[in-house]
């Protein structure tokens, strides 16, 4: 399918249709939805009602008693999640969330206003679970659950990236992300899933990472990146796999080892760990930090997350270090020890072997974020850094939604940036688009498939728009982030809207700047690009 040109997509029409929202049905236009999950993935993970169906079909082959399943599922979730019940009851439809959603701003579809997206679920709750809804119907926003409603749920719940920007502005903290997750669980209970997410889940479950790499392929990929390090820096960065008794288990999202530009961040990790002579290991079994299960159900999220502590116990490591990832950290921060059910006592409270810093803030969790770890090293002067090696980079920083609104990591990456970039090379995007108000990449939560590219470019428009602002104004040529999903999706987004800007992880910049004893003279960065002052065009501006 052909993607419209940027100038066409940027002409968003915010005028809602003339007919009421209950009468308007979604238009399943190719480019705006993800493909239905292939039955084999459901079978791999024992998910209900595997079948071959297509979103474009009239008949989605729902199980005979689908309506009872969904309503019972709703009743069950109302009993188990106070959030759901409360969020259904207290919304006043003030509309403060409406123009906060990147999908609304990008598509102009009023059902992407979080208030209305929630109303698609809430209308069913009102009709079947409240007295006033049973009595008054449409006037209080209640409606019958039919196949059209289920299709609408599917369409719009997979046009939400669980980024929580709406929740930030809601006067009652109503969290669309929470409702989206529970809504997706209900869809999954009648066999409605998207392929990209379910394939990733099944592969993570069975093999280790979402790309389905076998242990040997996982090792190959990372060994290759270690060789790249040696080629560029002259420094060997050996890696150990599944090594029992290592002090630290390192877990990172698979985006960091199988595709650019994530791979450069992984090269950065390897350089850093080698520099420190850290006693660490990778696991081919717990090889995926990104928890794709959480995109489809709490249970599936737990099933995938369980592998990390399981492996840490088997390898008898002391604590876990986590790489740069958004939703991996949201899941680890908000769910991991709770899912585990108790303090993982086979682990110790994390202590940096280099600085002796005790990570008190991870006392229960036993897992440290790479940005915390690195910031602590820099603070204690343990790294020799040459910021001039990043002089070809003018950077802006994208706070990933999950580490921002689901964790609150803002200062650590900025602290690192200040020490690995030359002074005056860092520029913030406008204040209403960063930190807790940050805009989503538009492709998270399992919807970074290729078949819905138009939606992704629309959803990412607000993010790209802010990047363009600093690009035009300050000549920013790199967007930094601490999320592998961002590194997977933002290059595509920026290629479309702001082709002059590249995406980079923060540890990649650390790797560039690290000065080793006995290293060869570096002429390029980890991406083989000439450093400033090297090559034919001395001191010239970098291309791209």
């Amino acid at each position, binding site marked *: 399918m052909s993607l419209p040109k940027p*100038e066409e997509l940027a002409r968003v029409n915010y005028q*809602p249709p003339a007919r009421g929202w209950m009468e308007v049905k979604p238009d399943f236009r190719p480019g705006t939805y993800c493909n239905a999950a292939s039955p084999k993935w459901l079978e791999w993970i024992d998910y209900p009602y595997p079948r071959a169906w297509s979103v474009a079909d009239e008949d989605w082959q729902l199980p005979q008693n689908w309506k009872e399943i969904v309503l019972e599922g709703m009743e069950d979730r109302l009993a188990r*999640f106070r959030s759901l019940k409360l969020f259904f009851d207290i919304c*006043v439809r003030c509309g403060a969330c409406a123009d906060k959603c990147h999908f609304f701003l990008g598509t102009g579809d009023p059902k992407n206003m979080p208030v209305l997206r929630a109303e698609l679920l809430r209308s069913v709750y009102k009709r079947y679970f409240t007295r006033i809804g049973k009595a008054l119907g449409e006037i209080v926003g209640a409606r019958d659950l039919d196949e059209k409603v289920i299709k609408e749920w599917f369409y719009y719940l997979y046009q939400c990236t669980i980024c929580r920007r709406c929740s930030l502005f809601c006067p009652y903290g109503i969290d669309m992300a*929470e409702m989206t997750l529970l809504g997706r669980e209900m869809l999954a209970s009648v066999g409605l899933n998207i392929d990209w997410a379910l394939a990733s889940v099944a592969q993570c479950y069975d093999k280790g990472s979402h790309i389905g790499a076998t*242990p040997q392929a996982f*090792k190959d990929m990372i060994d290759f990146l270690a060789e790249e390090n040696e080629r560029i820096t002259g420094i060997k960065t050996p890696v150990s796999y599944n090594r029992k008794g290592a002090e630290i288990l390192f877990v990172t999202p698979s985006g960091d080892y199988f595709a650019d530009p994530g791979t450069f961040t992984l090269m950065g990790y390897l350089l850093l760990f080698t520099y420190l002579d850290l006693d660490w290991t990778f696991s081919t079994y717990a090889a995926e930090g990104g928890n794709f299960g959480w995109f489809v159900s*709490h249970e599936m999220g737990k099933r995938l997350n369980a592998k990390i502590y399981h492996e840490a116990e088997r390898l008898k490591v002391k604590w876990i270090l986590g790489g740069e990832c958004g939703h991996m950290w949201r899941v680890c921060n908000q769910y991991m*020890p709770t899912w585990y059910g108790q303090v993982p006592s086979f682990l110790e409270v994390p202590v940096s072997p280099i600085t002796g810093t005790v990570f008190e803030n991870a006392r229960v*969790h036993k897992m440290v974020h790479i940005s915390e770890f690195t910031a602590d090293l820099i603070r204690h002067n343990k790294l020799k850094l040459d910021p001039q090696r990043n002089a070809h980079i003018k950077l802006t920083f994208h706070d990933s939604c999950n580490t921002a609104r689901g964790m609150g990591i803002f200062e650590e990456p900025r602290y690192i940036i200040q020490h690995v970039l030359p002074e005056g090379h860092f520029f913030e995007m406008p204040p209403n688009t960063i930190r807790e108000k940050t805009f989503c990449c538009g492709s998270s939560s399992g919807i970074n498939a290729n078949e819905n590219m138009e939606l992704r470019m629309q959803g990412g428009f607000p993010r790209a728009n802010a990047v363009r602002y600093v690009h035009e104004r300050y000549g920013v040529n790199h967007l930094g982030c601490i999320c592998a999903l961002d590194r997977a999706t933002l290059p595509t987004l920026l290629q479309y809207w702001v082709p002059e800007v590249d995406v980079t992880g923060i540890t990649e910049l650390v790797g560039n700047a690290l000065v080793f004893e006995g290293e060869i003279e570096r002429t390029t960065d980890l991406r083989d690009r000439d450093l400033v002052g090297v090559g034919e065009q001395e001191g010239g501006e970098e291309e791209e």
Partner: protein
Amino acid sequence: MNFTQRHITVALAAVLGLIAVAYVGVQGNLQLLFGVVVPYLALLLFFEGIIYRVIKWARSPVPFKIPTTAGQVKSLPWIPRTLGDKLDNPESKAWVFGRMALEVLAFRSLFRNTRTELVSDPKFPEKARLVHWSYKWLWLGAIAFHYAFLIIVLRHLRFFFEPTPQPIALLSEIDGFWQFFIPTFYLTDIIIVLALLYLLGRRLANANLRYITLASDYFPLFLILGIVTTGILMRYFFKTDITAVKQLVMGLVSLKPVIPAGISPLFYVHLFLVCVLLAYFPYSKLLHAPGVFFSPTRNMPGNNRWELHVNPWNYPVKFHPYMEYEDQFRDAMYEAGIPVEKEPETAEVEEE
């Protein structure tokens, strides 16, 4: 009739109908019904409904700790945290109290509101860009309405006590300091009318807001406007016998209801609308008032990594254990030099 017209008409007709019911009823000498039975019933429904709803919420657990973290989390001791960070990403219950107090008393999240618009910009390749600016009008309208409403309710307490308690008399005096009108003119009366008209006007003026607004959103606005209007009419234009009103209220309060003569039908309309508001409250979106205290994204500290949060219905799940995984890949792992728990059988043979 289109969506908006239908929803406005229903809401408006309902309020006008309620006014008519009370007016006609009182003309037909049903003072006992509207002055005694309905108020008691409304109060009963109000408390019963709220308690029922709150218990219902409370009975569902909060399985996960999901606060919105709108500021720097507590991490390394030297990472700076501003007062705002501590309030927006509270590390302990004391800071949660601060966060909630700001939410409830100052509408903190709404204060953060921005407005985003698509503007044409010839400098951008696609000739358009989004701008986000701070937008405080909704916050101002909401806070003006809620505080005016609160003060008006408190002022009305003078009908419930004999003698009027000092603080309430003082409140009335402050509210009425703007004495250019006889009887004393209350500032809150004009503020609440303006705020209500703003809240109603914004729903009508903005196409997207119109699109999401249901009869159940218009109804409380019209209803409260009706209450305010009848109140103002009674106070400034068609005066009713205040002494008799107080006698009625004191009768209700002391559970010895009386129906004094000389109370105008307008008062009964006013009282009836208030009763409807009370009875409607627990079954509608007005529940946001008690609900805000229960919001799991706001009322929990963001200390997940150093304090265990227990999910009461946590259960073991099926996952793919390491040994099964190794069984699947043992040979290949061994060959690739990845440590295994159990040496592959084929490997032993080869070694021999």
